[in-house]
């Protein structure tokens, strides 16, 4: 369903215009520092898109451009089939009906939880405002906390208040800037599911920004990988993970090791020996090794030595130093024992993906 063509991506469309559309948008700071370079993106209504990338790749800036807190230097931004930013036109953020959940939640410290949520409801009369506030607090599961102040509630609760506030005005789009980075890791997966269910029930188009691969893969309906201001690939999470178009996307979308090798058509040669390639390639290649695609066998003739093992509970990651001085990481069940120094033979379970060296 996804089409990838030279850095642009367009998702499968449903009826009507896409909820969010960016067309060739660029944004520079100070004339020389380019935050976002010529990106184009299209988000279907009701979809949950994740922008994944390392720090400084421009994902937060993209969010700000959609929200209207920054203006693009080039290109156009469209919301629900209407232009909101283009040369000669700029619709201010308060007019865009977009909600934003900030990384540090940005709850007004001088207002109570209920007042924070009601802040967006100024144009309603008292009665309807109170009703809507109660409704929203119920929606996020904070019914009794209306009178408390932001500094009196936990991080997870603060996030929910921020979401409630962003949803108050019934926006058609909600943007979330690294929503989980400020929460404790222990509850992260729980909170993730809660937030996803919340967003689904609110029936909004959501875009969230993260540098956490697992989070992006778990939550998103579609995933856009960004690097140095550009969108490298857009598609379903499974697709991006399994079929990365470039080496950089492979590295950004999941745990990855690379081996130098030489392609000879359908197979290639590398430190692991001869391996089958998914797509035929010739010449110098970088072979992608995902931890779960390789198995280990103890073999005194093997090309690699166990360097260390990282215990993870249900399984463990074994770091192997190959004779070619490269390292790969392999996931094995927890009960398997591989002592450091043991010689092993890693074997690929299935054909591997390769990229032309230097891509």
């Amino acid at each position, binding site marked *: 369903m996804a089409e990838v063509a030279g850095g642009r991506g367009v998702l499968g469309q449903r009826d009507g215009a896409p909820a969010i559309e960016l067309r060739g948008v660029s944004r520079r700071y100070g004339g020389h520092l380019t935050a976002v370079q010529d990106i184009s993106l299209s988000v279907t209504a009701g979809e949950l898109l994740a922008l994944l990338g390392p720090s400084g790749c421009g994902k937060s800036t993209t969010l700000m451009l959609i929200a209207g807190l920054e203006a693009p230097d080039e290109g156009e931004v469209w919301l629900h089939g209407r232009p909101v930013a283009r040369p000669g036109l700029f619709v201010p953020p*308060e007019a865009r009906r977009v909600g934003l959940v900030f990384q540090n939640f940005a709850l*007004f*410290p*001088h207002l109570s939880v209920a007042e924070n949520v009601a802040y*967006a409801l*100024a144009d309603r009369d008292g009665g309807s405002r109170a009703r809507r506030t109660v409704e929203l607090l119920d929606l996020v599961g904070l019914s009794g906390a209306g009178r408390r*102040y932001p500094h009196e509630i936990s991080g997870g609760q603060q996030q929910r208040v921020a979401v409630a506030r962003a949803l108050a005005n019934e926006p058609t789009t909600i943007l979330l800037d690294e929503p989980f980075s400020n929460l404790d890791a222990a509850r992260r997966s729980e909170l993730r599911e809660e937030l996803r269910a919340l967003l689904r029930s609110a029936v909004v188009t959501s875009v969230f920004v993260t540098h956490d691969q697992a989070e992006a893969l778990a939550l998103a309906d579609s995933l856009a990988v960004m690097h140095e201001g550009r969108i490298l690939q857009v598609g379903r999470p499974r697709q991006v993970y399994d079929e990365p178009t470039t080496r950089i996307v492979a590295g950004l979308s999941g745990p990855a090791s690379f081996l130098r090798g030489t392609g000879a058509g359908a197979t290639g040669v590398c430190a692991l020996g001869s391996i089958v390639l998914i797509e035929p390639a010739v010449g110098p290649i970088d072979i992608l090794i995902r931890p779960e695609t390789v198995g280990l066998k103890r073999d005194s003739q093997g090309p690699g030595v166990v360097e260390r093992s990282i215990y993870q509970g249900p399984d463990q990651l074994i770091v192997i130093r190959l004779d070619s001085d490269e390292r790969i990481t392999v996931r094995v069940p927890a009960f398997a024992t591989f002592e450091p120094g043991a010689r092993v033979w890693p074997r690929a379970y299935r054909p591997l993906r390769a990229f032309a060296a230097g891509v």
Partner: protein
Amino acid sequence: MGGSGRDSRPRPAIRSALTGSALFPLTRVRAPAVSRWRLTWVLILGALAVAFVAALPLFVVAGRAVTAAPSVWLGLWSGQIPGLLGNTLALVVATVSFAVVIGVALAWLTERTDLPGAPLWRWALAIPLVIPAYVAALALIVLLRRGGLIDRFLTGALGAVPGTVPLPDLFGLGGATLTIALCVFPYVYLPAAVALRSQDRALEDASRLAGRGRVTTLIRVTLPLAAPAIAAGALLVGLYVLSDFGTVSLLRYRTFTTVIFNQFAGQIDRSAAACLSVILIVLTTPMLAVEALLSRRGRRLAAASGWRPPRRHALGAWRVPALGGVILVAVLSLGVPLFTLGGLALQGWLAPTDVDRVWSVGNDGLGQQTLNSLVVSALAATVALTCAFAPALLAARYPSWPSRVLLGLCLSAAILPGLIVGLALVLFLATWAPAVHGTALGLGLGLTLRALPSALAAAEPALRGVPPLFERAARSLGSSPVAVLRRITLPLAAPGLSGGWVLAFLTAMKELPTALMMRPPGFDTLPVRIMAAANESVYTQAAPPALALVAATALPLLLLARRGERGLEGAARTNG
């Protein structure tokens, strides 16, 4: 080396950090380490001692007021008191309002808009602090009174009958308000600027995304968040106005301090003065309470992670009027007084009249007087800051009502009129420390008490702003509580503390009534010289010491500018 980072922290260190910390409130103490108890008690005793000395004038006054005959109280309430109370309150309200409006507006312009030349304005709008209000009053009187410079100029230029050219009336509520507000607005401007500068961009963005426009965001988010800092500045302005004596006497505006002073004219009645001073204290208590309330709210507004500086709004067509307004304030508060004084000094030097020649003899020792001022003020500021440390640390670490009462006692020396403070100290020293009485050290003590609140105002937020986290970390690494204070707390609080020194130094340099009362013969400070000449209306001879005062205060300030600004910034930031 094995294991991930998780279990690498040694357990004993955690435990000692928890129990060995100097920071748990006294009520929750578990296994006390001897050194921690010793430190806490030293702190409490130190704070008590400082508060006791600082509150000596208050005790003297309260004692006299309590033992005053009822007839004195009754006599005070007849006649002019209600009117003068009204005058005083009117002046306080007007000046505070005016100063807050100017200060906040200017802070917003320099910190939140694209005003051209903002760094220059930030500096120029803070400098009026070095000009005492009575010096500004002097300059304005010379310019605007009947027969003054502007009157003579306009009469000549327009060829009008002398005495008929319309001039703004300086001698009244409007004149007094304008004069004082133009000198004290930096007390509001500086903390407001810091508060506006340190707000998180995300808050205003959140407001705009909630559908609120720019103006609503300003009123409902930006200003309320800066309110504690603005309130602290407004309190300083209010206290200044209430205890001001020189300015209102020059401008002939009759306030409470005038009435208190009158009790000593003709027939000296100290008990009446004491009663009035007690009323003055009562007047200031609501102000202190309001500020304490607002600053407590301000403590909730901690800086969040991922802080980004706020956006600057484009002024567009408003750029020119805004710039004009800023320039107007700078000219009125800085340019006019300096220019007038410079002109007066030149006139007295180049074209002296007989009176000038006679009076200039008194200014021969100008260098010595400047040195006197500098030395005794620097001494007072240093001692004040050192003394402020104990009560401030106590209030910052153990915020409960006893420590706030101690703080209030320390502030009392600034609320009482300077004359009263000087008198009480003279009494105390003459009775208990005759060797110090009548010496420059006695004067230093008086100035220290008057400067103590300024030092406290900066020291308390600075110390409060040192996160207990760092102190706990230091304790876990084996430092004793005293060493933690010296190596962690002090250096981290240093910017705020040095801002406190600067404020205390300014206050001591400008202090007039206490210096009048307590100085030894032959040891004059610059404010004394200024008022001596101004009281005789020999303005040309009041100008040289006034200029010397401004220069002597501004130069150390500029030298400490970096640290001072960061310090004032730090003080204001942690104050909300």
